[in-house]
């Protein structure tokens, strides 16, 4: 890693100011993504602002309306929390399949949501791709087996977070602290698709802003949720395709649902076509099949990742069947 200076703020309110809004400073939470990027010289911030020195950011507070989770809560704590396992299963399950136990013991909610893409061109410090200010997205005409089939262009990364699809599916809200104070927004709006003007970032945070907590509303009765992850390597691998499903089901009738895909787009990708097919209907295998087909109707595969279309279709189908047990 290049040299950097380290700051241990005592209070949360100091953080935006300390970040200076110049992209030369970054926060460090668990460090499990950032330290790797810095060792590869993909990121070389001059200054790190340590969030671990601020007390009170790692609490899980359950109440009758929902659960509030501090941004510095570790993934292990989320995965092992009995209330979250019971009532927000998609979140516990997604946190529980991130990487490995050693990563989960240190990695945080905020860090996981803000982690950078795994695209092998992005992670190559000598490839100045579009996302890093260059002229070309190498994945577009290069090797794109792990890249996007939805929402891609001008860059084609997939968002690597497992908990992001779960939080979006559960209708979570995220609180952000910036220079002018805190604001809250739906998790779904936190992530942004790449545009020609801004292919650089995966979320709306300015360089002096951080996530402080998320709030997940308690699902209605008769709601179950889950997270399904397909990977090439069972141990410690990112998703080829994943899906977070939240289903309110009476008998076999799906009253409400939320289906959000991971591993297919630069953001967690709500499968609204599939939701439309299933919403208000009695789920059967035939309907589940139709939902899968609808989910990929507008897929836009690249040269090497057509298999993700099949995976997505089948995973949506499985999710629908899982909802009716």
């Amino acid at each position: 890693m290049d040299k950097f200076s380290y700051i241990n703020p005592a209070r949360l309110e100091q953080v935006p100011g300390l970040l200076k809004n110049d992209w030369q400073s970054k926060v460090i939470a668990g460090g499990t993504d950032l330290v790797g990027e810095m060792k590869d010289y993909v990121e070389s911030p001059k200054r790190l602002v340590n969030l671990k020195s601020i007390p009170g950011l790692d609490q899980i507070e359950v109440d009758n309306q929902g659960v509030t989770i501090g941004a510095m809560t570790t993934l292990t704590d989320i995965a092992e929390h009995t209330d979250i396992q019971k009532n927000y299963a998609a979140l516990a399950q997604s946190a529980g399949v991130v990487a490995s136990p050693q990563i989960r013991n240190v990695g945080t909610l905020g860090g996981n949501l803000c982690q950078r893409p795994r695209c092998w061109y992005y992670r190559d410090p000598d490839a100045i791709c579009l996302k890093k200010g260059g002229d070309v997205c190498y994945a577009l005409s290069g090797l794109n087996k792990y890249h996007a089939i939805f929402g891609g262009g001008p860059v084609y990364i997939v968002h690597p977070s497992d908990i992001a699809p779960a939080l979006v599916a559960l209708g979570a809200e995220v609180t952000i602290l910036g220079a002018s104070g805190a604001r809250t927004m739906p998790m779904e709006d936190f992530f942004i698709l790449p545009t020609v003007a801004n292919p650089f970032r995966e979320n709306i945070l300015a360089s002096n802003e951080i996530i402080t907590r998320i709030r997940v509303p308690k699902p209605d009765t008769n709601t179950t949720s889950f997270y399904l992850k397909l990977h090439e390597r069972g141990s410690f691998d990112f998703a080829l395709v994943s899906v977070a499903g939240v289903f309110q089901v009476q008998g076999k009738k799906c009253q409400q649902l939320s289906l959000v895909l991971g591993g297919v787009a630069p953001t967690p990708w709500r499968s609204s076509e599939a939701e439309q097919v299933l919403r208000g209907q009695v789920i059967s295998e035939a309907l589940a099949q139709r939902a899968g087909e609808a989910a990929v109707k507008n897929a836009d595969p690249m040269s090497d990742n057509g298999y993700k279309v099949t995976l997505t279709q089948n995973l949506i189908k499985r999710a629908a069947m899982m909802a009716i047990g």
Partner: protein
Amino acid sequence: MAEWGEARKSSLLGKYTQRLSGPQKVTGQAKYTFDINRPGMLYGRILRSHIARGTLTALDLSPAEQMPGVKAVIPLIEIGKEIRYEGQEIAAVAADTRDIAADAIRAIRFDYDPLDHVVDLGEAMSEGSPQIRDWENNQSERQIDEKGDLKAGWATADAVVEVTYSTEVQVHTCLESHGHVAEWNGDQLTVWASTQAVFGTRRDFARHFELPEDKVRVITEHMGGGFGAKFGPGVEGRAAATLAKEAGRPVKLMLTRKGEQNTAGNRPSMVQHVKAGATKEGKLVAYEVSGYGTSGLGGGAGFTGPYVYQVPNYRTEKFNVAINAGSGRAFRAPRHPQGAFAMDSLMDELSEKIGMDSLEFRKLNDPNEIRHAEYDLGAKEIGWHRRPRVAGSGTGVRKHGIGVGSGQWGGGGGKGTKARVNINADGTVEAITGTQDLGTGIRTAIAIIVADELGLHPTDITVKIGDTLPGLPSGGSGGSQTTPSVSPVVKTAAMAAKESLINHLAEKVNVAADEVIIKEGSVTIGNNQLSWKEATSTLGMETISEDGSWDENLREGGAAGAQFAEVEVDTETGQVKLTKIVAVHDCGLIINRLATESQINGGVIGGIGYALLEDRIMDDQTGRSLNSNLIDYKVPGAQEIPEIRAIAYDTDRKVTGIGEPVTIPTAGAIANAVYNAIGVRIRSLPITPDKVLAALEEA
């Protein structure tokens, strides 16, 4: 001529013995090269090229030289020379800390004239691609091998299969990267090396620095994996010693993970176009193959074929294709896993075409009786009868299948090892030789052999290996040669030491030598019994020290091997889940059954990676590898491991060697199992979900 005696009668040979190095390794006390800290030691680091091809036009080392904490900087390439692959060494530094060394290489400036690179096999071969060496269309000369009358063979074939098989570039991925600690003391050089060949490494250093060999000492007490990649100092070793000389201080230079994955060797890829024919009675009659692969810029690619199975008429054509990438090195059974995957798949494709059971077809064309027995044993263990008779006929989304793979190896060892057994007056016993233990367990095998001879327990033997200082050479640990090369010499040394002790005691007590019996920790002389220690204490000021000698009768070459895989393929996701693998392997006389089973497990797991996961990926735009790290280069982890039944198969043969045969049959067995499950054949490794889905969709 010595003999092993009836191994079955031995309480040690062929039994389960705990590895002697276990206590050191589980407590973190075992010191590997990476762990060596010497007084005043500096940390070395290599600057590597980030381009695949270009001519070096400028190299400015001064920013590194001027950096505080940097004590030596050397170039590793000359101006005007061509850079030929990503990762090629440009310069090296030695600095006070690891972090300063990393800063220093980043400060070095170099400039180059870019040249067009090519890193894709197909592109390298085509007209108009950059000519990156003196081979036309980047292809080496064809190596042709012919036998019999191919035309006549085709004429008698009732079934013909004509297909293409391909395998990936696989990276050794030793957990301890290549590296050395080099320390000069006047004109004496001591090197701690992570190597498979302490004596070969010594010779290499001596030649490079123009020193007499006895001025160089190479030490490898423990090392973290070799798999064929670590047979000499390489650029990094010579750089470490040069930096140490310049700085006047010891230098530790270990490769980074990226350098290790990128430049420290790999198993070359293979593409083969093969056509084979068989009669309906099940006889192979014709085989024709044209195949190639890449080992980077040089030769070294290749595959065995025809393989294991006899065919009277064949023609083979094999060649190398050059690309701008790090070169291949010997990797656990070089050329065999490539060839076996293809041959095992081919045998199944042919047997299906003539409507014969795959095992029956194999036996008809395989003269090796041991392998027949291994097929039978393995088939029974896996439940061969449970496999779908018609491939892909299972119902449901998840389909199960069973497949078989086979292999063969030479091994057998050779002369050249010197070993010594010392019996000291205090009862301690030393066994000394210049071999090295890569995790193979040779240290414990040596202890077992000596203990078996002297009636002691393996933990009573102090084994001293991995050091050139005693001057008892042994060969590099490759080719599965170590155990068969070392065992005979250690055995005869132990026998000689025992005889010396007997003669000494006989003389002392004034009896005939045959009245002295050494057995089970005690010594019986006539009617008197002494403990081992009491007996040796009679040596007084003397030590018994006997060298062994080579004995042909204690080893032989030739190992067979068969593996069976059971898989479950999820036809909706393309994921291949391994349920069970049965691996039956012979290696002649088994010295340590526990370590042998570990080798079998290890070979199978290496084969699982080869079959399903691993692939070094090169990007044509940048000329770089995209996955020189342990996230994107996928080796088997805990969740990839099925139930593995490792069967070390006893034969009456002599010590043979087991390191390599065990990784050969796995990919073929898995590929055949996948076919049996889904009825669609995947002819390209690794068998990843995208390939399975594509194959299912095409069907």
